[in-house]
C-alpha cells in the first residue's frame, strides 16, 4: 500500500493537473473534468472498525458498498446516506459531500467526518482530526475537505462516525398539494416525532420514521396517512437516494437537473418544470431548461442557492458564485493546500 502512496506522490510532484477519481460515479457532478486521471481504487481497504466506539476508518479507494456491508454486519449505518450513483468509493463520497434522504434530520456527510489523511499539492501527508468523537485541536480541516470536490488535496484515508441501524422504521404516504406538504413537513419536524426523511412529488408526500418501535407506533397513530409496505418503502427510499426513480432517471428531454438548497420554509416556487422536494423542504430538485441566472436569483432571494446538478451547459459555472470577500478566502485556502493547481482544476469554481 505504501507503494501506492509513493506513486500518488510522484504524480502530484509532476505539478500537472490531475483529475482525482474513485469509481467515477460522480463524474457528472461539478465543473468540467480536466487533467490526467489519478485513480484511487488501488488504495483500498478498511483499516479499522470499532463498532462500540462508533468509528470506521478506511482508505479512500474503498468501495462505499464494502463499507456499508461491514457496517450492516454489526447493525450499523452511515446515517447521512451518501448516494452511490454507481461504484462509489468512500473518498469520492466524502469529497463530493453529497448526503441522502435522512440528511435533514441525521446530518450531512461533513457532520460524520471525524478525520482525514490528506496528501497536499506538495506531496505531504497530513492528518487532521482523528478517530474520536470530539476533537477541537486545530482548525477543523477534516470537515473542510468534505464537499471540496477534491480541490484541496488527495484524500488518502478517512474516519467516519457511524450510528446504530434504527431499531424500527415505518413509511407513511399522504395526498397533499405542495403548499400543504411543505407546511406539514415543517410542522412535524418541530414536534417530538421520530421523523427521518421526507419526499414530496406529484402531490404525494412520503414520510419515513426511524426509531424505537414504541415511538414509531405512536407517531403512525398521531400522523395518520397510509402505511406503505416495508419492502416497497425500502425500494422507494433507495431509489430516491440513488436517484433511480422515474423523476430522476426519466428521459433527458425535460432538461437538466437543478438542485435548489433553500430554507425549508420557503413557500412553493413557481418554476418551469417538475419538482421533487426532500429534506423537509430544504432540498428541491427541478427538471427543466431554465435560465441559470434567473433561477439563481430566485434561489438567492429565498435565502438559498441553486446548482446545476446533472446535464446542461456548464460554461457559466455549476455552483452559485461567491461574494468577492468569500472568493478571496477560497483562493487563499486553495493556494496553501494546492499551490501549483494540481487537484481537479475548475471542478468547483472556474477561478481555481
Amino acid at each position, binding site marked *: 500500500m505504501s507503494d501506492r502512496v509513493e506513486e500518488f506522490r510522484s504524480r502530484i510532484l509532476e505539478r500537472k493537473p490531475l483529475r482525482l477519481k474513485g469509481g467515477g460515479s460522480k463524474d457528472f457532478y461539478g465543473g468540467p473534468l480536466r487533467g490526467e486521471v489519478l485513480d484511487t481504487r488501488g488504495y483500498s481497504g478498511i483499516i479499522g472498525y470499532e463498532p462500540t466506539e462508533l468509528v470506521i476508518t478506511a482508505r479512500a479507494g474503498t468501495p462505499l458498498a464494502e463499507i456499508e456491508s461491514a457496517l450492516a454486519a454489526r447493525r450499523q449505518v452511515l446515517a447521512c446516506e451518501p448516494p452511490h450513483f454507481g461504484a462509489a468509493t468512500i473518498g469520492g463520497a466524502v469529497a463530493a459531500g453529497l448526503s441522502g434522504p435522512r440528511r435533514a434530520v441525521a446530518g450531512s456527510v461533513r457532520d460524520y467526518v471525524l478525520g482525514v489523511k490528506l496528501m497536499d499539492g506538495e506531496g505531504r501527508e497530513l*492528518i487532521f482530526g482523528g478517530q474520536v468523537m470530539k476533537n477541537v485541536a486545530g*482548525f477543523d480541516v477534516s470537515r473542510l475537505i468534505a464537499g471540496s470536490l477534491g480541490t484541496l488535496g488527495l484524500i488518502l484515508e478517512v474516519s467516519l462516525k457511524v450510528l446504530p441501524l434504527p431499531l424500527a422504521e415505518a413509511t407513511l404516504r399522504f395526498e397533499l398539494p405542495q403548499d400543504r406538504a411543505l407546511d406539514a413537513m415543517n410542522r412535524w419536524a418541530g414536534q417530538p416525532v421520530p421523523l427521518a426523511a421526507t419526499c414530496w412529488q406529484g402531490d404525494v408526500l412520503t414520510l419515513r420514521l426511524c426509531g*424505537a418501535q414504541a415511538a414509531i407506533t405512536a407517531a403512525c397513530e398521531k400522523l395518520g396517512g397510509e402505511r406503505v409496505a416495508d419492502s416497497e418503502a425500502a425500494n422507494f427510499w433507495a431509489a430516491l437516494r440513488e436517484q433511480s426513480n422515474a423523476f430522476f432517471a426519466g428521459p433527458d428531454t425535460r432538461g437538466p437537473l437543478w438542485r435548489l438548497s433553500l430554507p425549508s420554509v420557503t413557500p412553493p416556487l413557481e418554476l418551469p418544470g417538475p419538482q421533487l422536494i426532500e429534506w423537509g423542504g430544504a432540498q428541491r430538485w427541478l427538471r427543466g431548461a431554465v435560465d441559470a441566472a434567473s433561477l439563481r436569483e430566485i434561489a438567492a432571494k429565498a435565502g438559498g*442557492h441553486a446548482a446545476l446538478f446533472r446535464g446542461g451547459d456548464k460554461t457559466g459555472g455549476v455552483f452559485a458564485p461567491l461574494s468577492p470577500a468569500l472568493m478571496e478566502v477560497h483562493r487563499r485556502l486553495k493556494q496553501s493546500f494546492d499551490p501549483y493547481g494540481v487537484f481537479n482544476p475548475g471542478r468547483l469554481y472556474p477561478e481555481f
Partner: protein
Amino acid sequence: MMSHENSAETAQDVANPDRQALLADLARVLPAEALLSADEDLKPYECDGLTAYSALPWAVALPQNDEQVVAVLKVCHARQVPVVARGAGTGLSGGATPVVQGVVLSLAKFMRILEIDPLARLARVQPGVRNVAISEAAAPYGLYYAPDPSSQIACTIGGNVAENSGGVHCLKYGLTLHNVLRLKVALMNGDVIEIGSHALDDPGYDLLALMIGSEGMLGVVLEATVKLTPKPRTAQVVMASFDSVIAAGDAVAAIIAAGIIPAGLEMMDKLATAAVEDFVHAGYDLTAAAILLAESDGTAEEVAEEIATMSVLLEQNGARQLRISQSEAERLKYWAGRKAAFPAVGRITPDYMCMDGTIPRKHLSHVLTRIAELSAEFHLRCANVFHAGDGNLHPLIMFDARNPGETERAIAFGAKILELSVDVGGTITGEHGVGIEKVKQMCVQFSREELDKFHAVKAAFDPLTLLNPGKAVPYPRHCSEYRLTGSAR
C-alpha cells in the same frame, strides 16, 4: 490566584505613544462608556476561566453594534494591534486571555435574540446571548437549543461557536458544529461575510466547519443562526454504580453495541462523586469506584423501553446499584450533580485545572490507571469526570497556587495527561480548545507540516495575524522548546 508566565504588567506603560494613539483612535469610534483603559477597569478582563494565565491589555472595547465592531477592527488593523474577542470569559484554555499590547473586544453588549422562527426551527441571535437564554426563548414553542455545556447559564453562543462547545447531551444531539446553520462574521480587516445560510448547505468550501472551533482566530462572530430541536416529551435517567471503572466502561460499550445512543451517558470517579455529593446531595453511591448516568428521552413508551434495556445491560456488566429517576425533579437532581462537578471540586481545593482529552473509550482503564500513577508522582489529587459516550475525559487536577512550585507541578501533570491522550490515539482537547494552555502540546499531536497548514488557514482569514495571535497553533519555536523534553512529533 497567582499569575503565571504571561504575567500581568501591573504598571501599564501609560505613556507609551502607540497606546496613546490607539486610545485616541478608538475614542473616535466608540462612545466613552464603551472604551476602558484604566488599570482597575481592565483588571476584570485579565483572564478567562483558566486563571493560571493573565495579562492586562491596552484597552477593552465594549461595542454596542456591528458598525462599532467593524470600526474597532479597522482601527486595530490599521495600527496592527492584536484583538482578542471575548464572550463571558468562562473558557478553560485561555482563549480569551488578553494579548499584552492588544485590545480585548467584548461582545457582552450583543445580547439580543433577533428572531425565533418556530416553523423553521431556528433562532437568530447576537453573539453575547447566553447559551441557556436561547432555550428559554424557544421553550414556548416546544423547542430548545441542544448543546448544553455545564457553563450554559453564563457562557455565550459566540464563545460556544469559537470553542465548538459540547455538553452532556451531545452524544445524541451533536456539538455546536452540528447545530449552527449560519454565521455573520467580521474579518480582521473589517469586511463582513456571511458563512452558511438558513438552507442546509452553502456553495463552495465548508467555511462554517473552519469557523466553528476556531478559538476567535479567524473572525469575530456578529450573529449566529442556530438550529432548534423539538423538546422530547419525557426523559428519565438511570444512575448506576460500579466497583471498578473497567466495569463501568464495559457497560457503556454494551449499551452502544446494543444499538442505543442514550441522550446522555456520563461517568464520574469516586473522588468526583464525593465532591459533588457533598455539594448537591444527589444521593450518589459514595462507596462505588465509578458511577454512570445514562439518560433516555422521547415518548413515554420509548423511554420505558430504552430504560429497561439499559438497566439490563448495566446489571449484566456488574452495576451493583441502579436507581431510575422517578420524577422530573429527581432527574434534574441527578444531573445537577454532574453539571456542578467543576465547581464542586473547586470547593474542596484552593485551585484546580480542568483537562479535556478525548480518548478511544477502550483505553479508559489504562488511561485512568496511568492518571492515578501520575497523581501519586506529582503529589496532586485528581478527580475524573467523563463524557463516557464520546470518550471525552476531564481530569480535574487539584492544587494550591500559594504553595511555591505547585502551579508548575499542576501544569506539568496536565501536560502528561495530554500526551497520554495522544499516545492512545486521542486528542489533547475535546471541547475546551487549545488556547494558551495546550499550545505546546499541539506539537505532540501535529507535525510541523500540519501546523503550517493551520497557520495558512488562519492567514486565509487574517493575513496579518492580528486576531487572537499566539493561541491554539504553536510556532516552530514553541515546538523546538518542547522538543527538548522529547515529546514533540
